[in-house]
């Protein structure tokens, strides 16, 4: 195991985070704060609570998930796409590092950044609305599992993308709609019966539901199902990464 290489890649990526602090950390915090001001304070005060939770508090887990997903994907995809784009990837490819070590470095850094960000948003949210966390350990577990899974997904997108447009395409056209439709701002029980069924095909529903359960003990789908679905998605991403390195797809001629 080339620990020094994992450390080198991890620290390199984290240095990029600190260098672009404003963009990496501050801007998601500001946009999330705006959500709380608009949905939590302004609109929320005119809405009845859902499942016994005030609307402002109800949207907290969903909003954290929204940032966690989009940030994990963009951090990890950019992290691996950029060396490919400028050509510095030659050094990674010629180094005595295994695929696992490369993934551990890049995905580890992207996930760390997302988790830090998620926790910052959590603290920010507390300034706007009062809430409690019933299962803090589960909350952290969901946070970590989601960050790692979607960083892996972002890593795959970064390798697949051969131009900047593709890099934005999946997050924009797939992930953002799925997240908004995944119950960030509502309970899926509020939907008509048909759409309740359709929405179960959206993997993000399970993430948000499980995460909300760790806060308030209420969920749209069973917690076990949430964990299971996240694990399935994680397994799919791992398999894709394994295939990428086995074939050298978009990395090696």
């Amino acid at each position: 195991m080339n620990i020094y290489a994992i450390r080198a890649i991890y620290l390199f990526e984290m240095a990029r985070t600190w260098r672009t602090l404003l963009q990496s950390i501050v801007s998601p915090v500001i946009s999330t704060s705006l959500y709380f001001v608009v949905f939590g304070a302004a609109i929320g005060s005119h809405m009845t609570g859902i499942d016994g939770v005030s609307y402002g508090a109800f949207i907290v887990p969903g909003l954290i998930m929204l940032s966690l997903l989009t940030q994990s994907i963009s951090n990890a995809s950019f992290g691996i796409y950029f060396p490919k784009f400028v050509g510095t990837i030659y050094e990674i490819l010629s180094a005595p590092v295994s695929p696992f070590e490369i993934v551990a470095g890049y995905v580890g850094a992207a996930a760390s950044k997302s988790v830090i960000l998620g926790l910052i948003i959590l603290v920010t949210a507390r300034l706007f609305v009062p809430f409690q966390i019933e299962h803090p350990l589960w909350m952290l577990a969901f946070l970590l599992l989601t960050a790692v899974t979607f960083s892996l997904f972002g890593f795959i997108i970064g390798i697949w993308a051969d131009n900047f447009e593709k890099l934005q395409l999946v997050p924009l056209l797939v992930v953002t709609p799925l997240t908004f439709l995944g119950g960030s701002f509502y309970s899926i029980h509020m939907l008509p019966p048909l759409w309740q069924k359709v929405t179960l095909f959206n993997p993000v529903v399970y993430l948000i539901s499980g995460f909300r359960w760790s806060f308030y003990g209420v969920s749209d789908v069973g917690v076990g199902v949430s964990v299971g679905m996240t694990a399935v998605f994680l397994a799919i991403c791992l398999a894709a990464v394994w295939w990428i390195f086995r074939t050298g797809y978009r990395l090696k001629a």
Partner: protein
Amino acid sequence: MQPIIAVNQLSKTYASGFQALKRIDLEIRQGEIFALLGPNGAGKTTLISIICGIVNPSEGTVLADGHDVVRDYRAARAKIGLVPQELTTDAFETVWNTVSFSRGLFGRSANPAHVEKVLKDLSLWSKKDSKLITLSGGMKRRVMIAKALSHEPQILFLDEPSAGVDVELRRDMWAMVRALRATGVTIILTTHYIEEAEEMADRIGVIHKGELILVEDKAELMNKLGRKQLTLHLQDPLETIPAALAGYPLELSADRQQLVYTFDAQGEHTGIDMLLRRLGEAGIDFKDLKTSQSSLEDIFVSLVREHA
């Protein structure tokens, strides 16, 4: 002694169908400077890229210090440093960080003293805290060499090291290459500048259209190079070379109008004065004379043309 690099029946066909390498066999000796010479698109970079792990081989094997570069890539790559042709750097990193990053990536524990030495050797010490984006092209080239040397490799690849490099940097670079060789590092460089190969290399390989068409000691090539020819255009054609001139390495051209004398230009006595005196004594008149030297460039051009 086992070769430090052994390339065996190596072929590469790209997805486009282009065959970049055709069954290459090559052995690089430990501690030598090997120059790989060839025109653009000959396959030099593909060969290096396969050895370094950037391109997958289609067929054949490569051993680096006895380790298969595909199956035992960890051990093989740890011994190799690569300075690629393109100047690709992380714009916002500092010189110190990027060189330290390379060392870690190649599995070595941090060693500030070594990084400092490498930077000083390459006249980069004063720039250690500068961001790469602020450096000139020549300085970036130095940084890329520093990155390749950060993990103390046993084998160093320099792909077109003098492309876009000024005289001073080239001189520094060659001094550094010689110093590295003195410590036992094997150096493989690609170039299309023949003078460069002539100045630096112990052995020279010529690659053309994916085939290795010549591998020879530079000394032997220089021997061929060191030979000069004196051509005498005769006033009257000769039937045979006169007995009085028997001791000289002379050849009569097919049209019997020219006498060709081959001599060692680097020898103490070229023998030209004696030859001319003998010719006068034998009553052979000539109307013109010229001397010519076959350069590495001539050899190269004729080889490449032969294989065209």
